[in-house]
């Protein structure tokens, strides 16, 4: 398990956050800072690339859901892509797959924003 890295890729009409490592209580402030920056710049179309994510805490899930709600109020959304089986299973058991849109790959999530 590595420390979490969050890399932001800015595209014309959306932002992708590439996650690597664990989103736990230790890296939570980093996630919060990244989401705050997006809110402050009024960027509301966000994709979370979870390919490198090996853990997510409930507080992090809560922050994502909060961001998604606010983004929707502003005509955008936050969508997850490339969850590992392990993390998808957790998200599903907690019922969050009904709250957050989840796509298998980046392309389909990007297309869903364009539609």
């Amino acid at each position, binding site marked *: *398990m590595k420390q979490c890295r969050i890399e932001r890729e800015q595209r014309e009409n959306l932002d992708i956050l590439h996650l690597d490592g*664990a989103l*736990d*209580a*230790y890296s*939570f402030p980093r996630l919060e800072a990244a989401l705050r920056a997006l809110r402050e710049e009024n960027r509301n179309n966000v994709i979370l690339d979870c390919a490198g994510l090996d*853990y997510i*805490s*409930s*507080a992090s*899930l*809560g*922050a994502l*859901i*909060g961001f998604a709600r606010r983004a929707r109020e502003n005509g955008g959304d936050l969508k997850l892509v490339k969850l590992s*089986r*392990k*993390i998808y*299973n*957790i998200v599903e*058991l*907690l*019922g*969050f797959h009904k709250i957050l849109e989840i796509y298998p790959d980046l392309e389909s999530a990007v297309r869903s924003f364009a539609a």
Partner: protein
Amino acid sequence: MQDEPRSGGPEQISLQIPCRYSYLRIVRQAVADLCAQTCVSEFKAAQLEMAVDEICAELIEKLRQRAGGDGAQPLLVILRRESGGIVSEVYYSGQKVEFPALSADAAKSTEDAAALGSYVVHRFVEKVEHVRDPERGWCVRIRKAL
């Protein structure tokens, strides 16, 4: 071949860590490794990992608040296999910490962000206790059936 079930023997890990978020991942690794050795499915292991992480994270937050940061005393985490289940005990010193992750009331919905930890713990493990050990202090004990 090395992934075969272990033959038996006392499968237990004890881990004492400074009261800091940065050590949560050792705790999760310990849960994952113990589960792998005791043939717990990948999904059940992930659930226990999350429940233990949520408990430790909440304790660390509350204990650091109380002690004003780095004065907080270490946590002792004991993980073991016990007839048909895995038990996790998290011991801490000082007075009892009240926190929502242990309340079954708070565990009823995912609406309230503060109650999310609670929801996770109760959703993922069968038994949650907050007990006093005469020698080691307060202990949050959870048990996940295999």
